[in-house]
Structure formats: C-alpha cells, structure tokens
C-alpha cells in the first residue's frame, strides 16, 4: 500500500460562533497509529468526523487514501467505531458484524464467512448467535470493532471507543486493538482523553487545545508492535518502561501548555 492514509490541509470547521477546528494540518501514513488527545471541546471528535465525512469542513481539504473524504466514504475505505457500540439489538452478534457487508450487497455465504473470521479475531466466536444485550460493555465494543473491520478497510476511525469501559477491561481492549491493528495493517485514527491510552497505542500522539481547536504539539508514542524491538504482546512491558512514563510526561506538558 502506498501513499498516506489521511491528509488534512488547512481544515477549519465553524459551528455558529464556535471555531471547532482551526487550520488543521495532519498526515497519517499507511499503517500508522495516530491518537488525538485534548480536553473536552478541543475538536478532536469533530476532526475524526470530518475525516469520516460525517461533517463537512468549512474550509480546507480532506483526502483519504488520496481521494476526497466523501468518495472514500462511498468506497468504504474506512471502518468506524464510536464511544457507544451502537449495535442493532434486533440482530444477532454475527449479524451485527455482517451489517456493513449486508448494506453493500455481499452474498450471504461470504458475509457469514467473514463474520466468523472477525469474531474469532476478537475472541467472541461462541457468542455469534447471542443478542447484543446479553454481552458485557467490553464485549459489545469488540463486536463494534469487528463490524468496523468487516469491509477490510485500510483506515480505522475510532471515537473514544473505550471511554465507557472500566480500567481493567480498557487495558485488555488496548492490547487487543494493538494486535488487530498489527494483523490488519490498517492505519488508525484514535480519539481519546486518556494520556496513557494515547501513549501506549500510538506511533504519534497529536495534542489539541480548545477555542479554537488547534493542534499544539505532536509527541512520539510508545506503540509496541510497530517497532522492531517490541511485539504487540509486549504491551505490558511498555506500560512499565521508563520511556512510557517519559512520553506520558511529555503529553501532559503539551496539554498544559495548550491550556495556558
């Protein structure tokens, strides 16, 4: 795969009197994991929604895999997961994973096969026939991630997907996401308000400040799988390493500066 996954140039977004995004310049390479972090109202979710073509920028250009964002959406170049799993409770878990393929007319046999594959990847094979309501929050979020991956997107957009989970579940989901991102080689744009989460998941942590929403700094993250010396399973080692804590301090400093 060649060329960057996402290119944002001079992107502004104005809601009435509020400048939600102001002069955003950001490029995400193929297979790169980038986190957006910042206080509430800094426009990080808006930025993700602009990439997803759920919002139109007021000014600037958004290109996904070299195409305009709208075209990329129509071509299903990205998969998306929200803070709420947003599963359809009248469909089984497997049928929820199949949804994107169902919408795009993929034949039933192929859909089934892909859903089984994905459920195995997220470790929910035995829940394929369950109803979403029977699953815990963490499990539902894994189903939502599997659903996002169904059309084999080269870009994964995630809007605080682990925001509503407890800390233990959250760390397990982070390790899982790293493994999945490594296996699928998809680029990830990940919105979070947790500093350790951003650091441990990302190649780069993009720090934003509010009013107007701007990128103030980009800090190197500590994502294990993307570095030659660390496999995704080494995530626990990373969490305890000195470099991890240094990176956390760097992000915290950057956030504080943005606020001041």
């Amino acid at each position: 795969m060649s060329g960057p996954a996402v290119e944002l140039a001079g992107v502004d977004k104005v809601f009435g009197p509020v400048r939600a995004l102001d002069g955003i310049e950001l490029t995400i390479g193929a297979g790169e994991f980038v986190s957006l972090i910042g206080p509430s109202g800094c426009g990080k979710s808006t930025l993700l929604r602009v990439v997803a073509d759920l919002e139109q920028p007021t000014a600037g250009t958004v290109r996904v895999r070299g195409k305009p964002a709208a075209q990329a959406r129509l071509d299903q170049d990205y998969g998306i997961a929200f803070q709420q799993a947003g599963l359809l409770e009248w469909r089984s878990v497997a049928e929820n994973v199949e949804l994107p393929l169902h919408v795009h007319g993929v034949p039933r046999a192929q859909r089934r096969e892909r859903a089984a594959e994905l459920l195995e990847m997220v470790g929910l094979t035995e829940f394929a026939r369950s109803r979403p309501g029977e699953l815990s929050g963490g499990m539902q979020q894994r189903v939502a991630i599997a659903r996002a991956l169904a059309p084999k997107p080269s870009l994964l957009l995630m809007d605080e997907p682990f925001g509503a989970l407890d800390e233990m579940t959250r760390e397990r989901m982070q390790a899982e996401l790293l493994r999945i991102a490594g296996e699928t080689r998809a680029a990830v744009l990940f919105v979070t308000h947790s500093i350790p989460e951003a650091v441990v998941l990302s190649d780069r942590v993009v720090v934003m400040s509010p009013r107007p929403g701007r990128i103030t700094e980009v800090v190197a993250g500590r994502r294990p799988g993307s570095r030659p010396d660390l496999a995704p399973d080494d995530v626990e080692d990373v969490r305890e390493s000195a470099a991890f804590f240094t990176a956390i301090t760097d992000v915290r400093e950057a956030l504080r500066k943005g606020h001041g």
Partner: protein
Amino acid sequence: MRTWLPPLAFGAGVLVLWQVLVLALAVPAFLLPAPTAIAGQVGAQFGVILPTAAVTGGNALAGLVAGFLLGVALALLAAWSRPVRELATPVVLAASAVPIVALAPVFTTLFGSTTEVPRQLVVTVVVVVPVFVSTTRGLRQVQPVHADLMTALAATPWQASRFVRLPGAVPHIVTGLRLAAPAAVIASIVAEYFGGPQNGLGSRISSAAANTAYARAWAFVVAAIALGLLYHLAGLLLERLVTRPRQ
C-alpha cells in the same frame, strides 16, 4: 404473592361489602343489583352472552386490524414524505381530540343500518390514531449513533430505513397496537348505543336497562368488561412476544 394479595383482598372486600350493603339497606335493583344477582344472570344468560360478545368482539377485531394496517401505512408514508407528514399530522391530532364515536351515525347513513360495517369503521378510525402516533414516534427515534453508522456505511435512505428505522420502530408499533386493543372494544360497544342491529353487548345492555332488567344488564356489563380484558391481555402478550428477545 405479596403483590397479589392486597389487590385481591381489596377486590373481594368490595364484593362482600357491596353484597352486604345491597341486602342490608334493601338497595333497589335499578340503583345497584347484588353481586349474587348479577352472577346468577351471567349463568342464566350465558347462552346469549357468548354470541353477543362474539358480535361485539368481532367488530372490534375487524376494526382493530383495519385501523392498525391503515395507521402503520399512514405513518410510513408520513415518515418518508414531508408533504404527507404535514397533511396527516393535523388531521390525526384533530381526530385524537374529537369524539370519534359521534361518527357512528354518519357511517350508518353511508353504509346502511343493517350491517356491522358502520361499527367496524368507527373502531377503525378510533384505532388509527394511537397506532399512527406511536408508529411515527418509533420511526422518528433513531439513535444518533445509528444514524452516524448508516452515513459512515454510505447507506441509501431506503437502506437506512430497512436496516435501522423500521426494525427500531417495531416495539413502538406493537405498543400502539396494545394501546388500541382495549380502545377497539370500547368503541365497538359505544358505537352500538348509536343504533344499528340489536345483536351486540352494547345494545343488550341498553335494551335490558330499558326493560328494567337491571341484573341482566349488569351481566352484559360483566361480559363487556371480560371482553375488554381479553383484548388488553392479548395486546400485552403480543407486545411481550415481540419485544422479549430485545431486552
């Protein structure tokens, strides 16, 4: 047990008190017959009560089905087309405020006084209103995350309806049906007070009362209450069946 005991005790207490008061104070039958007298009439008239209730219940069912289909169809049209929505909403709102049963004589003039059609039509109109209102509410209530998901998946409006809007509205549609079911029985009975064939529970109640056979009239009232309960419970059961797998 704990939840059933107080209401059961209260119900039994009222019946006993009613019986005792009627006997002790020699309450005249036109005011209130004794429960035992009513029960006796229910037994004596059972052969009449069943076919009579079948007529009233049949009219309620016919109107319920027709009104349900009409209400859902109208709500679907209104959800998809703005002009239909803007025209249908004031009419349905007005219908919900207007005493619809007063339309009974109109339908009788239009369709003739010898058939059940006028009564079934009154029930139909009565049923359309709650079904339309509740279906519309269901079709409108799409969670923002589902709407975003459909946009992200580049789904067409028709696909968004098929995958999210319609299935999401099903519980509301069934709730509308559940609310309409007892209303259908009430409308069916009241429509009989406006004339037409003398074969249903409503007409039997008025004719028995007019003939000063008060206990018999009350026996038909008991049957009317049982019929209303039957429809209510059937609606409740249907709602449970449809919404159960969803939690």
